[in-house]
């Protein structure tokens, strides 16, 4: 088991014939991901990487019955591509693009209401269930099948945390990048909820950063809705206010946006907060061993 994507997922690439999409589709196929085709408007009817190309998502869905879409179109056209995927009733939409206008995402989120799709991203390395399915641009060799769910806003910090876990032989059930934008497709809570319901996930690592309320919102939600332990870190304790730290969403614009305030609040709400990013793997190990020695959930300060 896993969340959102697994060995039976059928993946369609939107913007399939582009350079990045081609490279990452090939990588995914090599790793065993079931890529069933792609969409490039104007190139329908041809084949690419030995797979069928369609003009529209509607046609792609009719022919392939895909359940996951990997969107590799440029930021200016991404909102339209996401809505096309929603309209085609696909289940999971992964948006890699960095630089989608915020108000485009506001409209996309409105359009999503009443549909079942889950949007992962934008501005994300994607999602991977190690050994089963990879939809994104992450280096798959650092991941290892296992029982830790990972959810993060940042890409490379996700890699950092995953490497610390894999080194300690702690594999991952699924790793989800929700992305670094201020308006993202799905929030921490959606992913935590999926991990809570996944029998193969024992604990969750949640990596946030400065800006926005979603880490604390997640902690509030988890306090009453999660039985599995959450190990968390918030990047940007040394970031100055008022400056956008790379990610469009990483901006301290008020007191509640700082890493310090977020981490203190998350700790109060029962998360295992790691203050040093180098200690993520070690903390997961400690929390798991405590979990093994006591079958019931208990609060532990790290």
């Amino acid at each position: 088991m896993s969340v959102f994507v697994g060995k039976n997922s059928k993946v369609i690439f939107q913007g399939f014939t582009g350079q990045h999409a081609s490279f990452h589709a090939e990588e995914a196929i090599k790793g065993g991901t079931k890529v069933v085709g792609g969409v490039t408007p104007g190139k329908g009817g041809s084949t690419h990487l030995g797979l069928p190309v369609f003009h529209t998502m509607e046609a792609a869905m009719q022919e392939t019955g895909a359940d996951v879409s990997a969107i590799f179109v440029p930021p200016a056209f991404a909102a339209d591509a996401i809505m096309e995927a929603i309209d085609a009733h696909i289940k999971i939409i992964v948006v890699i693009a960095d630089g989608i206008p915020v108000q485009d995402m506001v409209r996309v989120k409105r359009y999503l209401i009443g549909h079942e799709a889950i949007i992962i991203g934008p501005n994300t390395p994607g999602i991977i269930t190690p050994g089963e399915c990879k939809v994104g641009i992450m280096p798959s060799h650092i991941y290892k099948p296992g029982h830790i769910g990972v959810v993060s806003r940042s890409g490379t910090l996700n890699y950092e945390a995953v490497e610390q876990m894999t080194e300690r032989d702690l594999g991952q059930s699924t790793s989800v990048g929700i992305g670094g934008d201020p308006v993202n497709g799905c929030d921490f809570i959606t992913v935590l909820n999926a991990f809570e319901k996944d029998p193969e996930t024992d604990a969750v690592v949640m990596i946030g950063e400065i800006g926005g309320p979603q880490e604390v919102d997640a902690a509030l939600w988890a306090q009453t809705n999660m039985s599995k332990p959450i190990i968390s870190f918030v990047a940007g304790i040394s970031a100055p206010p008022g400056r956008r730290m790379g990610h469009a969403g990483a901006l301290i614009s008020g007191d509640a946006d700082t890493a310090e305030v977020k981490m203190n609040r998350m700790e109060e709400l029962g998360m295992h907060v790691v203050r040093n990013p180098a200690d993520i793997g070690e903390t997961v190990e400690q929390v798991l061993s405590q979990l093994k020695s006591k079958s019931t959930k208990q609060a532990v300060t790290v």
Partner: protein
Amino acid sequence: MNIHEYQTKELLKNYDVTVPAGRVAHTISHAGSVAEDIGGSRWVVKAQIHAGGRGKGGGIKLADSIEEVQKLSDQMIGSRLVTHQTDNTGHLVQRVLVEQAFNIEKEFYLGLIINRSSQRITLIASSSGGMDIEEVARETPEKVIKEIVDPAVGLHEFQCRKVCARIGLVDKHMQAGVKLMKRFYRCFRDKDALLAEINPLALVEGDRLVALDAKMTFDDNALFRHPDITDLRDFDEEDSKEIEASGHGLNYIALDGNVGCIVNGAGLAMATMDSIALHGGRPANFLDVGGGASPEKIANAFRIVLEDPSVKGILLNIFAGINRCDWIANGIVQAIRDQEIRVPVVVRLAGTNVEQGWVILEESGLEYIKATKLDTAAKKIIEVINEKEQ
């Protein structure tokens, strides 16, 4: 991207939001003639810089004569204005906005933001005009009124009436308030703004609602569809090194420490800074080299970081995903060979092809300190800097 007050007001005027009669002036004589054109007996002279807090910093002053307008403009133009939002050297004032002055009856706050909880545009209003809204929210949260906009239908009149009623913009003023809010919202939506404030929105003599001060921030990612906004960019208001870095595809932000940082990915870059701070060091900058970190990018990153004289050591932290460590290592070799590196460098590599990366660095004969973990990398750079300083 930020723009000046006078530019924001011109933009709002195009949307029929009432702003004071006034024009921007670059010279003292021009400031005088603007005041003459406006007429009346009282004017405001406002220094045009992007930072807030201009009033307290002495950048907004009243004048009762044309001579005084000229005198104040003379004081402001060419001076450096320091406010709580600038560093202690301030910003160079290159122009002033000369406007008619009003007798104010009542002041309000009006703002539009993208609310990150609701993920929608949100109208914010308060009867406490002229004050910092963050402060109002802290001291008297009940005075901050919020109305969330459904993007499918836009800001509705009933929502504006609700807001007007709650901030006390009532009786004969309500209709004017509703119209102004709708125009303000349309401007925000059309131009892909991220933040807009009219503060204060003033009720002045003659029962008019006037935007006395206004600021707007636009979404950099949407500028491709707004050439008119792009044209308003004032490079003098931005950090020249940050502009140069972005020209090379690097995201650089200067900080006040002495440990230079070169990292791939925004999250890892922040975590690297955090790690340095945690071990008692102070990062000199945030620098994200991005996904495709070519040798040229790495070389430019070294150059930009080293231009900061306070940098006493560099921590390069790369976790290669789509990048490859061997490729990064070639970039480091090229960078260090082509320029004089006057400070110790700690290199931490991880991820794709990490072994090949180390081989390239070792065979190059370069002087660097190797680290395989984030934590040890941060400790080592602080140690060497401390040793050198003793």
